């Protein structure tokens, strides 16, 4: 994937018509709290930004240019040290200039999410 996503080790996991799942394997250099060995929140933010961005591309059926307008993350619980985090991003609505996204991240059990996100993307090809 190149750039920041590759630096963090983010990889493709699965996708559907309007959603994408990406994987963030645990790595020591992503730790935000050395005392507990817990992942920093920043890499999870990047994971969810990328997964929801892919969701928009999938729903629109093309790699059209867009930019994140805003992203909100609720950190439901810390990721368990050593576990790969899976981030699922879904695009649930494309308007003329804005795409609306939501998603969740988990570390093994989708029914026990560790983060929830909501956000919007500005469509840069819109006139």
């Amino acid at each position, binding site marked *: 994937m190149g750039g920041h996503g590759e630096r963090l080790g983010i990889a493709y996991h699965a996708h559907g018509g309007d959603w994408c799942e990406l994987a963030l394997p645990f790595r020591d*250099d992503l*730790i935000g709290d050395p005392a507990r060995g817990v992942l*920093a929140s920043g890499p999870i933010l*990047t994971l969810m*930004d990328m997964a929801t961005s892919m969701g928009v591309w999938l729903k629109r059926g093309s790699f059209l240019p867009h930019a994140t307008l805003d992203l*909100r993350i609720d950190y439901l619980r*810390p990721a368990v040290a050593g576990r790969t985090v899976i981030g699922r991003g879904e695009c649930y609505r494309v308007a003329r200039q804005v795409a609306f996204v939501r998603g969740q991240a988990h570390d093994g059990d989708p029914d026990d999410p560790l983060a929830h996100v909501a956000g919007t993307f500005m469509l840069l090809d819109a006139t």
Partner: protein
Amino acid sequence: MILPPYARLLGLLPRTDDDGRPLLEMPFAPDAIGRPGFLHGGAIGGMLEMAAYVALRDALGGESTGDGAAAVTIKPINVTIDFMRGGRERTTFAAGIVTRLGARIANVTATAWQDDRTAPIAAGRMNYLLRR
């Protein structure tokens, strides 16, 4: 202040502004790129979160011990990031402001900018849970 491994991955450097408040500097690195020519929103967001955390640590001051271990544990509850301008391939700065420091909750805002502090590229609003 000792920054965690993720802050080192981003290349964050602790600085102080003219008023003596903490500031973070992130020299440009190809590892932070998202779409061609622009910083990744996640890297900017991660930097904002770290700036907010550093401001909160600074505000807690004497409640932190001198050896880098914290007497107060800080857990992020949520963060909302607004992206205002594309981050270009140059040095980025970020600083946080603690808007309210309560017994259990801290509300913090943070902004990131490049050439002009009054023209931020992104801003964040963070809520933290404190355990004393």
